[in-house]
């Protein structure tokens, strides 16, 4: 039954103009950067900055839109003899697979085309982080959209969350560091940083790239505290938690929701 639901939804999503556009977006971005710079390592650095902005935004908006669009169809599915949890799992897996595939194909194809051999491990890390971020922000989108019945408010919350995590969070974080500069801040900094999946993604990639310019304060702390390899593993584990916890909350909301 899960397979039937998955295949139907994947089939439907693959025909979506959003998904096709999203795939092309990454392809065009990488091709354009390569065309200007002619250097694959510069492409990877630029790609890192772009995915940290684009993936959270698109995953949130796509996920929220998907839930609101399927509200009435969910009623039909829920009136069939299938457990609720299967409908949720089918929906979440299919959107995660389709958006991750779009990112993988769009970026992967272009990177392969431009000969990524020398930078294979960092390319794979970037692609993996992109997939983890996609799943994490889709789970957050599901949680928001199932919690909030009003479509406009749902989109508003999604955009607000994106702006907070991408821009405001670092500003507030820096203010706190400045305010408490006389105290040892390594551990609190690591904890506060773990509360932002975008920062975690940035740390994983910059630790792998070993780029001190992009690492920032927390990246440097991670490196000092854990070393590069362990820092990547710990950040990766926390990023996976950023998928599992919102997924669990979204699923709980779905199971209790009135349709």
């Amino acid at each position, binding site marked *: 039954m899960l397979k*039937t639901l998955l295949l139907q939804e994947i089939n439907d999503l693959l025909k979506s103009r959003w998904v096709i556009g999203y795939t092309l977006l990454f392809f065009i971005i990488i091709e354009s950067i390569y065309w200007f710079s002619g250097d694959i390592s510069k492409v990877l650095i630029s790609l890192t900055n772009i995915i940290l902005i684009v993936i959270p935004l698109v995953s949130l908006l796509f996920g929220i839109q998907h839930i609101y669009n399927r509200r*009435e169809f969910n009623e039909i599915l829920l*009136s069939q003899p299938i457990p609720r949890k299967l409908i949720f799992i089918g929906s979440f897996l299919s959107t995660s697979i389709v958006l991750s595939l779009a990112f993988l194909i769009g970026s992967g194809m272009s990177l392969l085309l431009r000969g990524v051999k020398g930078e294979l491990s960092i390319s794979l890390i970037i692609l993996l982080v992109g997939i983890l971020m996609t799943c994490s922000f889709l789970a957050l989108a599901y949680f928001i959209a199932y919690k909030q019945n009003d479509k406009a408010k749902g989109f508003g919350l999604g955009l607000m969350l994106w702006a907070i995590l991408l821009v405001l969070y670092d500003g507030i974080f820096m203010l706190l560091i400045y305010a408490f500069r006389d105290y040892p801040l390594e551990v609190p900094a690591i904890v506060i940083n773990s509360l932002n999946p975008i920062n975690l993604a940035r740390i994983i990639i910059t630790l792998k790239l070993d780029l001190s310019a992009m690492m920032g304060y927390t990246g440097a702390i991670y490196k000092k505290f854990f070393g590069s390899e362990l820092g990547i593993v710990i950040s990766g584990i926390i990023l996976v938690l950023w998928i599992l916890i919102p997924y669990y909350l979204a699923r709980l909301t779905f199971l209790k929701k009135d349709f």
Partner: protein
Amino acid sequence: MIDVININKSFGKKGVLRNINLQFHNHSINALLGHNGSGKTTLIKIILNLVKPDSGNIQINGKQIINEWQYRKDIGYMVQIANFPENLTPIKLFELITKIRNIEPANRDYLIEQLNISDELGKPLKNLSGGTKQKVNAVLALMFDLPILILDEPTAGLDPIASRTLKKILIQEKEKGKTIILTSHILSDIEQLSDYIHILNDGNIIFSGLKEKLMTNGDLEKAVSKLYLSFRNK
């Protein structure tokens, strides 16, 4: 028999259903009547477990169904708003639900022919008119020959010919021994189709019984108006 026992439901501070007790009778058409927002759709959705009641119980032929899902194998449901995934075609939609239910859609071809949608089966649902989507919705609910049918405003949005055809099909289904629950604002439809009428007013049942018991003077509209007026004056 579907027994609704002491059902209460609120959305926020607003009480939608208040201590509802009624019976939907087997082998007959049960009409649920009420103003917009009177709680008809909420009650139907509670029977399907789409909405969780705050308290109370539903029993189908003596079995409690709250928080269960297997019992839905016996229920065909026609939603009020037919909105399907854009790129799906009606035929793919029928195949999907057939795969999920894993039973033969015994009535599918008959319904497609009766509702005259053969030419629309291969078109994406986003390209179909509201009326055609409602016909697809009707096929989806009725195609499996299930013992219980729940239809939320089944004739809304249909042209007069399709509406007449659907009503004819519903009478045939009743004659086969089905238990049918339908909601409608169209009193002539209810008068024509129903055996039992249950009237909701602000979340309370104000009448539940045989149609003839309500229509003592033979006019449903007058009988319903009189009933509402008497409750408003109280």
